[in-house]
């Protein structure tokens, strides 16, 4: 069973994501902000992280930087899911090493497809 970490401060969005991924046979972890996410990552190694950017305390960019420093998370895919949809924001996100940048509002179906695609690629590569 693949593991997924959802990091977002909007409870209603989290709720939809949680329901959908659980239904698609993921083990789901939830964090309300970057700090909480990093705490979880100390003990868990998810296969995918869905990361919001605008969050209190530690934002998405800073969280990703920390993730990239952690060797245990080398194989973890990171998807930014943000309402920040400016070119510059997207470029910044991808430059930091995110595998994908999706803008809000998003299609849940597409997101699930993209996650599966990323994980499939991983499997092929091996």
């Amino acid at each position, binding site marked *: 069973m693949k593991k997924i970490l959802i990091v977002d*401060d*909007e409870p*209603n*969005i989290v*709720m*939809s*994501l949680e*329901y*959908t991924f659980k*239904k698609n046979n993921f083990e789901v972890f939830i964090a309300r902000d970057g700090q909480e996410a990093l705490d979880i990552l100390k003990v868990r190694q998810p296969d995918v992280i869905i990361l919001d950017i*605008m*969050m*209190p*305390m*530690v*934002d998405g960019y800073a969280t990703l930087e920390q993730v990239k420093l952690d060797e245990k998370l080398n194989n973890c895919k990171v998807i930014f899911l943000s*309402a*920040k*949809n*400016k070119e510059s924001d997207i470029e910044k996100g991808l430059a930091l090493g995110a595998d994908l940048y999706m803008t*809000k*509002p*998003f*299609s*849940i*179906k597409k997101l699930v497809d993209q996650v599966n695609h990323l994980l499939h690629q991983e499997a092929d590569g091996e």
Partner: protein
Amino acid sequence: MSSISLLIILSLYLALLFFIAHWAEKKANSRWANNPYIYSLSLAVYCTAWTYYGSIGVAATSGLNYLPVYIGPVIIIPAWIIILRKIIRISRLNKISSIADFISLRYGNSRFVGALVTFICLFGILPYIALQLKAIAETFHVVTRTEASSNFLYDTTTYVAIALALFSSYYGTRYVDASEKRKGIVTAVAMESVLKLFFFILVGLYVTFFVFDGFDDIYSKAVQLEDFNKKNTIGGLTQAVNWFFFCLLSLFAIFLLPRQFQMGVIENNRESHIKTAVWLFPLYLLAINIFVYPVAWGGNILFSNTEVNPDTYSLLIPQYFDNQVLTVLVFLGGFSAAISMIVVSSIGLSTMVSNNILIPYGFLGTLKSGEQKENTRRIVNIRKLSIFCLILLSYFIYRAIVLDYDLFSIGLVSFVVIAQLAPSFFGAIFWRRGSQGGAVTGMIIGFMVCTYTLLVPYANGITNISSTFNTEGLYGISLLKPLALFGLDYLTPVPHALFWSLFFNTLAYMAVSVSFKGNYRERNYAEMFVDIDKYITMHENAFIWKGTAYKTDIQKILKRFLGEERTRRALTIFNTKYGVDNNQEMADARLIKFAENLLTGHIGTASAKILISSVVKEEEITLPEVLKILEESKENIIINKKLTETSNELKAITAQLQQANEKLLWKDRQKDEFLDTVTHELRTPITAIKAASEILHDDDDIPDPLKKQFLQNIISESDRLNRLIDKILDLEKFETGKQTIHPAPNNIAATIQKAIEPLQQLIKNKGITVTVQSGSVEAYYDEDRIIQVATNLLSNAIKFCPETNGKIIINIQKADDYVTVAFTDNGKGINQGDMDNIFDKFYQSDNQNIKKPVGSGLGLAISRQIIEHHKGKIWAENCPDGGARILFNLPVKPI
């Protein structure tokens, strides 16, 4: 007293004058030679021997008639502040050195006008100088009790004239530039003014208090003389009209007499000196007149039965009582009055003769090819010779003609002749349309009328009954009677001549000026004269000239008069003043005018123009073109002036602009960020709604409770979206003034409580303690709006409170007519750099550690709008012990 001893005294006195002149030249820059008092006193050159002796004569024979000569100047002197200052400015800027230069420059810099003015001045002034010589001679004989000799070799006046000629030609031509200041002469004249006043008052006091027993005594004795009443009555309207013309005459004289122009304009070195002159000079005139009457009537009483010349009463009275010292002192006073006039007039006239007749009509060719040293020597010699000749010429006029006339009448005839300059002169500074043709016609006709009505009758002898010309008119036509022209028979000869000559003069001047257009040069100078104040700084700009000129040609001419070194320096000044490149090959209008000015002091305006135009090629410009250029250059000059004046101001404004620009850029960035934030805020609920809807749509096997939960999410997110839009619209309404408030009496404590209530749960969750410190305060406001503000501020405070132990204090206080509400938290406080901006709509702190702001950054902006609509104030501060405090106040009473 013997002739020899008086001659010795005279020589000593002259030596003293030489010494003072010499000393003042050396100390030309000290404040002794350079103050408004010297200037004002030097103007008293107006009071000549005619004043000194003649006034007494007139007062003795015809009563008050001596007064108008002083009243005229006193009437016009207050206007000096405007008129004289204008004349001085025009003269200074154009390097004008005589009244002939002044008038001729204005009328197109015409050589002919200059010569004409010089001619009129010579005609008017030479007899006047002769008059002074006559006064010296007569009084000399009175003092020495000798008879005038017909052999000029035995006539003391011959030698006095020669001595004066030497003195004036030496000190009057120290500088080749005639517009230079002659400190020596001015100081000597000022000193003489003091002396003549002092001696006159001395004899006045002597006559009034020693010979007689005060003013009363003289009056009571004079009344008994048979013709006292007749002489001292102002006779009706005709007399009044006569008086009026006498006043007018002297009013013109104070401007137009070459010696007054010399002292008042050419020798003025600071405009501010006029301010002293306007009170000191009239005071001087008053002082010198106080004792005229007592001396005159004292003389009449003492000499009622003897045949003596009343002009000499001031000498005869002390002599009668054998007071030798006083007699000599009075004589010296009169001598001073005479020689000041002679010296100053001859200098003024010689400048005119040399610069307006001899050089432009004769020597210019020679000067043009000469070298600088040679030229300087030549010009100075021409002037020296002119002074010498003028004084000697006056001497011969005195010997040949004036001997038979009294002081007063000759003086007045001079005045009338000089008054012919008046229309052209005053027209020059006040009337743009005045043209050369008008000026020339006016002056010639005026002079002719003056000759017909005054000079010829005087030459015939005014009371000569055997002259049919005088009594019956030309060819016996009674309308042409010279003393009652066109039947005007109630004026005395001088006012009569003044009236008709000025009438025809002015008429011709105006008629010709209006009927015929002047050329462009006249129009150009008209502008520069009339509007001198506009051109005061860069007046070369006002000169209009078109054509081709090479700088080197002009330089060559300048060198011939100024020499190598001064030419170079002058051109450097010019280049700096106008920012012209030193290597520029062609000369422009400004340089032409500048060069003319440099030469003007040496050779006069007309010659300067002739010389410069001989090396340049000028093109005709049409009159409309001139007017257009003038208009433009006037604008340019104004702009130029303003530019120089405000260059510092501009720098300051530039700095301000830069600041404002930076601020604008910063605001623009803030605006982008705001839009960013707002769109982000709008997208977030939309995202939640979309995600929930998608699940509900695609997934049929969602358990019912969960389905309900998703639907609930959609509803609450829609509400959130709606609130956000309301806020944005709210702010927009306040900012565009569409929002109105509905104030009513309310209790502020109750209102705050209403704001706290809905947030109670949140406060509890975060473990914050909220304290309200307040009594009950009534105020006048829109409660819903103030609740909105309080909610905003409270939410902010909650947001910034620390995770644990958060404390919020709300304090309500009333002071004067305002109630102040303060929200204090114990968070990290407001960054100092943000303090000014936190109420700006687009503002979100750059230094917010918390990357995701709660709320949209609109709360404080809306709060400020609401408070300001209540005529209150909202501001922020940091507490000394950490934490932020946001305060607002509201007026208690309705506004």
